[in-house]
């Protein structure tokens, strides 16, 4: 069933969304055993130890690297650290849970009450985070027609669960938050945060309200991409509003998103409202984190993406949207940091455009950048001192990436120095005027501006062609207008 939102009074309805995000920390081994933390594309049940399959009498051994990465993530998200946190058991029965309980941190999580800055269309939106805690991932169930199989490779991998306050008010905010979170995790190297590989998973809790009327909260699972999340939120919002507009009540439940129909549906199994019987984990002592630990492991704030974005905005006047595009890609981010101070104020905008246009495009297709900051600066200097045109700069850049040569080497080899000599430019323009008499005549007789513009463009093109693209376009344009005016005046008077 789809909902005709035009007919619904969606104006006064507001959306309330909270997220529970599960992040796989990129540790080498699992949270409570020394089995390698590898589960994608490998032989099933290969990377397991006794702890990961719930063997009798086996006890958890806490992975200190996981604690460090969790701590670093909490600090990057401005969470307050509980210097004494503890582990608890959350009980539920499912074949992919080896002990039929998950070791998590329910009562005293490692971090509480933080925030992260995100930007949507250059407007800042601060998302408040309620808590973050360590817990174990479960195994994977594989169902076929006649039997089900369990693969415990993933069982025991360290997760950090991050819970936001239910204050997000649109699908765009949710997507912006998740993108920012993903970039942050990768920047501080605590998770590879690849949604397709299940390294970052989000469950969405959604409700709508209008004035004093608050609809029930619904949980949505099985959201495997940002696009799914966006579509699911939009569908749910409309569904809730339609129900409430008809004076009915929204059922508080868990629903699954269907990626082919872009709709959610009720979960058939009776999994809702389980009593998890939380109990402190007796086999693990309290986790103590000292102020010294925090000082030692904290990632410097100038390496945190949200802070970088604010700084670039303040210091260099870069708009958040553009800043973020650069920040998201580590090579470009670093390149900017290394070079921006050598770029003068008036060239800044052009430089950013070059980074976002050429450099980023190369990285996206080749997954690497063979050009170093010094080489790029040399190229930019050639461009900004007008030795070459922008079009030439792009060509030089490609050649530099392919051959490893410096900018100057490529320019020399290709004989690309821009023609800036006014006399030479004049000669080129004169030659074109002589070799294209029909077009010049058409220009003189043109009745509309549009036609005149087209002809000028054609003549410009011819100038560039004769000069093998090396003529300074600005100069060419100047002289061409002058020449055409001169001819026009002669024509009128003659």
């Amino acid at each position, binding site marked *: 069933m789809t909902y005709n939102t035009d007919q619904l009074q969606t104006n006064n309805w507001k959306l309330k969304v909270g997220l529970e995000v599960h992040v796989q920390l990129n540790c080498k081994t699992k949270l409570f055993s020394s089995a390698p933390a590898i589960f994608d594309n490998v032989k099933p049940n290969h990377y397991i130890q*006794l702890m990961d*399959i*719930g*063997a*009798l*009498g*086996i*006890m*958890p*051994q*806490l992975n200190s690297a996981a604690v460090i990465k969790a701590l670093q993530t909490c600090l990057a998200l401005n969470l307050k650290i509980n210097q004494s946190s503890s582990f608890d*058991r959350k*009980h539920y*029965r*499912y*074949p992919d849970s*080896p*002990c*039929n*309980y998950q070791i998590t941190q329910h009562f005293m999580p490692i971090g509480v009450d933080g925030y992260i800055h995100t930007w949507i269309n250059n407007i800042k939106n601060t998302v408040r985070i309620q808590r973050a805690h360590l817990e174990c991932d479960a195994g994977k169930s594989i169902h076929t027609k006649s039997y089900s199989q369990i693969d415990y490779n993933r069982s025991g991998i360290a997760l950090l669960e991050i819970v936001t306050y239910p204050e997000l008010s649109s699908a765009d905010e949710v997507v912006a938050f998740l993108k920012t979170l993903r970039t942050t995790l990768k920047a501080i190297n605590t998770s590879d945060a690849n949604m397709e590989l299940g390294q970052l998973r989000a469950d969405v809790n959604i409700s709508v309200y209008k004035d004093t009327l608050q609809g029930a909260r619904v949980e949505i699972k099985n959201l495997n991409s940002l696009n799914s999340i966006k579509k699911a939120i939009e569908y749910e919002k409309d569904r809730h509003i339609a129900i409430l507009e008809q004076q009915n009540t929204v059922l508080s439940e868990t629903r699954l998103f269907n990626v082919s129909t872009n709709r959610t549906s009720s979960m058939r199994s009776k999994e809702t409202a389980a*009593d*998890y*019987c*939380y*109990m402190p984990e*007796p*086999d*693990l*002592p309290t986790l103590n984190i000292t102020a010294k630990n925090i000082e030692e492991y904290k990632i410097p704030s100038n390496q945190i993406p949200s802070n970088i974005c604010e700084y670039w905005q303040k210091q260099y006047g870069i708009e958040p949207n553009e800043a973020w595009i650069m920040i998201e890609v580590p090579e470009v981010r670093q390149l900017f940091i290394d070079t921006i101070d050598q770029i003068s104020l008036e060239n800044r905008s052009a430089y950013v455009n070059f980074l976002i246009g050429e450099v980023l495009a190369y990285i996206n297709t080749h997954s690497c950048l063979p050009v170093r900051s010094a080489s790029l600066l040399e190229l930019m200097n050639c461009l900004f001192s007008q030795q070459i045109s922008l079009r030439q700069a792009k060509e030089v850049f490609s050649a530099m990436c392919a051959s490893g040569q410096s900018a100057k080497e490529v320019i020399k080899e290709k004989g690309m120095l821009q023609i800036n000599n006014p006399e030479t430019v004049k000669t080129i323009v004169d030659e074109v005027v002589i070799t294209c008499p029909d077009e010049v005549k058409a220009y003189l007789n043109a009745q509309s501006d549009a036609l005149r513009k087209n002809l000028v463009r054609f003549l410009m093109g011819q100038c560039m062609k004769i000069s093998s693209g090396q003529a300074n376009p600005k100069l060419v344009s100047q002289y061409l207008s002058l020449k055409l005016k001169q001819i026009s005046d002669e024509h009128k008077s003659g």
Partner: protein
Amino acid sequence: MTKKITRFSLQEIVSLMQKGEVSPLTVLNECLNEIYNTKLLNAYITVCEKESMQEAEKQLQEIGKNRHLSLFCAPIAVKDLFCTKDIRTTAASNILRNFYPSYESTVTQNIKNHGAIIIGKTNMDAFGMGGSNTHSDFGACINPLTGLDKQAKVPGGSSGGSAAAVASYTAYGAISSDTGGSTRMPAAFCGIVGVMPSWGRISRWGMIPYASSLDRPGVMARSVTDSCIILDTMMGQDYCDMTLSSLTPPKLSDIKPAIKGKRIGFIEHILLEEENKHTKHLLLKLQKEGAILCPIQVPDLDTAIATYYTISSAEAFSNMNRYDGIRYHTNRKGHTTDEICYNARNDINIEVRRRIAIGAYVLSSKNHDDLYLKARKIRNEITSKLDAIFQSVDVVILPTTRREAFNISHNFCNPVELYAEDKLTILANLANLPGISIPTGYTDNKLPIGTQIWSKTFDEVSMIEIAKAIELICPFSLNSGLRYDI
């Protein structure tokens, strides 16, 4: 040799074997024969005849290297709660009837490293839950000091099999466990020594958990000296158990008996009771030897019992959650995993199921704060109160049980009645104290009873000093009590 081989103490027999005066294979054979002779006691679930022979032969092959080991070729029984590699481990439960672990628990590996030979896995209450060894899926165990007829008595529980094995001379010592009294109580009922070290002293890795914050591996032997020899091999660092203390364990075998000037706490109202006169006489003897008796007040025992059963049932529920018919399957079928689980869990012993139900109830979100959280608070208070008591005394001495071993056929109208048997042992578990039970007399029915000594957490030294002193001052003879006849 005038004395039967199996009647020697652990210390004596190891010495004889080390000196070459008796062959380890002979010793092992004698014990295996004794097991066979006493099989109606049902003390063993699995007898490791082949494995123990192989182990003895292996040790003899490198006798030069192994001879000095403190447990050289000593046959030791192990409670079926400890995972032994390739040797069946059942926890006396149907669910694990065919479970052969692929790994060795730290405790059994430690004793093996010191030369011990595991002669068999002993009977117990299923998963450690019970005080009588009548809740075993492999049949009840019989107290060797009683007849096999209608008057057969329980050996106590949950380590009943271990106690019976030691008391019937089939092994020179036994590994057991204590969560609420499971080592001390059967030791008292069977007239032997049972030692429970502090929680966090011995690794629990590979020990099937019942109530993890209360479980401790323990030992049973026919003398305090013997128990110390075994305990010394069990203690030590283990990185696999994060709850282990980093304190260096004391060498208990080196401890000398001491009693003069020791301050002994006693609980007045308990000693006034008639059946506890054996403890009273013991205390008066100790006083004559120079001990200082100090009356103390302990927290209410009924509250302690309720607290213990709340916490231990909650943890039992949690530890038992994994038995769902899928991993440790019992051939129960169903159309859904829920159905299989339901059917499989019906195979679990009734007493265990009772505890699971209590555990789920106290942990449910509705009751969590009122029951479970409250019990934990009370436990903390009990711990503080007992810590304070040990500021003014070195040890506390009290009877181990309220009475002698009861009939196997005794009908407890209410399960809680059986729980009340733990009253005297329970405080030491809740407050993480070490404890030892020593046989100190016989009742009018010629059944043994015991006295326990508690000391401060990690102060096993004080407890053992006084226990060794008692052994000298009031020696107890097990032999006069044995009455089973086959």
